[in-house]
């Protein structure tokens, strides 16, 4: 290791210590707090044992609402991101187009979804619609970047060949860009939906719909057991969505990327 990198590591270490002191981080409090987990665990188990039908019902419908919000937001955001990412690809447009487009997308990305949710709750009032809009904006900013980055890695040869035989930009997009990046594009969609189900689960904290509403309400009333029940529902749902998207990815994304979908005549 060079002296320079030693210095950098030393400075980062010093920053972590100084920062911890500034925010009054206390490892002792963490250790002291460990027994609370036991208490919580006991309470949760006790309350889970007597979960009422009403709560299961609520959890089911609010989780379904969450998934739907994530689904709509992902799809709409993705659809909006596609044309914007085409305009933001350095290999498809001129500097005068891609530079401002990248600027806009970077600005959209600066907000985390919960901030978009706050903004839209103010704009359209509380409820799932505000949440869908928040997820849409987040997806737009995030997915467009993934898309234009993978469009920029497309082999230049087929694009050059296509433009040299007189194809228009739109024809090149349809016949070169889309097929050459299709597996990546599908991968991004799955990844984003997966991620959005998690994000949407907390948008209820600011009143933007979904199961987060129950989580924040029960925390406010110090009903940790009920809170835990809803969190458990989120956990299980996320695991299922994760599992399904891994399966889909294996089936459609990985295979087509490695080119193992051979059909023997």
């Amino acid at each position, binding site marked *: 290791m060079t002296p320079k990198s030693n210095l950098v590591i030393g400075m980062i270490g010093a920053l972590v210590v100084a920062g911890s002191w500034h925010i009054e981080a206390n490892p002792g409090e963490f250790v002291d707090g460990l027994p609370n987990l036991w208490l919580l665990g006991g309470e949760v188990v006790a309350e889970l044992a007597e979960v009422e039908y009403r709560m299961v019902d609520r959890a089911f419908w609010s989780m379904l609402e969450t998934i739907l919000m994530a689904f709509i937001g992902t799809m709409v955001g993705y659809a909006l991101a596609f044309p914007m990412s085409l305009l933001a690809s350095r290999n498809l447009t001129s500097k005068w187009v891609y530079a401002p487009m990248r600027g806009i997308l970077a600005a959209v990305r600066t907000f985390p979804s919960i901030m978009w949710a706050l903004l839209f709750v103010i704009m359209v009032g509380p409820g799932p619609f505000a949440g869908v809009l928040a997820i849409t904006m987040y997806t737009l900013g995030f997915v467009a970047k993934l898309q234009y980055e993978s469009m920029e890695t497309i082999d230049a040869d087929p694009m*050059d060949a296509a433009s040299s*035989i007189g*194809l228009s930009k739109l*024809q090149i997009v*349809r016949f070169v860009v889309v097929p*050459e990046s299709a597996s990546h594009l599908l991968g991004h969609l799955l990844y984003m939906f997966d991620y959005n189900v998690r994000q949407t689960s907390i948008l209820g904290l600011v009143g933007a719909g979904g199961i987060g509403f129950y989580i924040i309400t029960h925390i406010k009333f110090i009903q940790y057991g009920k809170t835990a029940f809803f969190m458990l529902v989120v956990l299980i749902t996320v695991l299922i969505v994760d599992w399904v998207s891994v399966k889909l990815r294996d089936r459609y994304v990985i295979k087509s990327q490695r080119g193992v*979908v051979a059909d023997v005549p």
Partner: protein
Amino acid sequence: MVPVLKTLVIMISSKRRSHAQRHLNTFKAGINYAIVGLSGSGKSTLLKLMNGMMVPSRGTVLVEDCKPDQRDRQFQKIMSRIGYIPQSLGLVRNSTVLDNVMMGALPRMRLMQFLLKRYSEEDLEEARRVLDKVGLLGKEDRKTYMLSGGEKRRVAIARAFMQGPRILLADEIVSELDGTTSREIMNLVADMQKDTRLTAVMIHHDIRLALEFADRVAVIQEGRRVMELGVDNDTILDFQSGDSTTQEILEMYDDPKE
């Protein structure tokens, strides 16, 4: 016969090398030309100048009385009738053989036709005819990345012929193939060239193939044609430069061990 391709003083800006001799390169219509020359002599550049992928910094290139420039409306029409097969072939790996071949017909398709890939019956018929010619009929739905090297070249040739080309530019398309496959492919192109009577300019790595399949062989050196061989009578028809390097090229090609 009218000269179809006329390249006058081709010059591309390059600080290190300057190929600035004034000269005249003319390719006559309907003739099958082969271009040979040492690597780095400017063969690929010459083709790119002819289809407008590159613009000369000095001098003039004329293709069918038009200056090649891909942004020029008038040249775009000509461009769609210039079949261009780069050394890398430029195929879309993840598309089917049919979609790759149909790219040649895209300039004459309507918006919804190509967006939804709803090819017209005439285009499909033409594609089947061309695919039959190159021996790929029945493999239309294959993804291109699954094909062999020889088959990939057939797809690229089919794409070029789907354009209904008046000019075919091909850059070392058989260099990486074995002798038998190279000859098969070259025979195919030669047949199709005769059928359509188009002007072909094909770069060759192997002068033997060039002599075997072309009507005329042009030797390129430092970006310009230094001589032209008429293959029919085996005489050197055009010997613009008698300097020693020209002799060296010929001698290099005479010696099979290079």
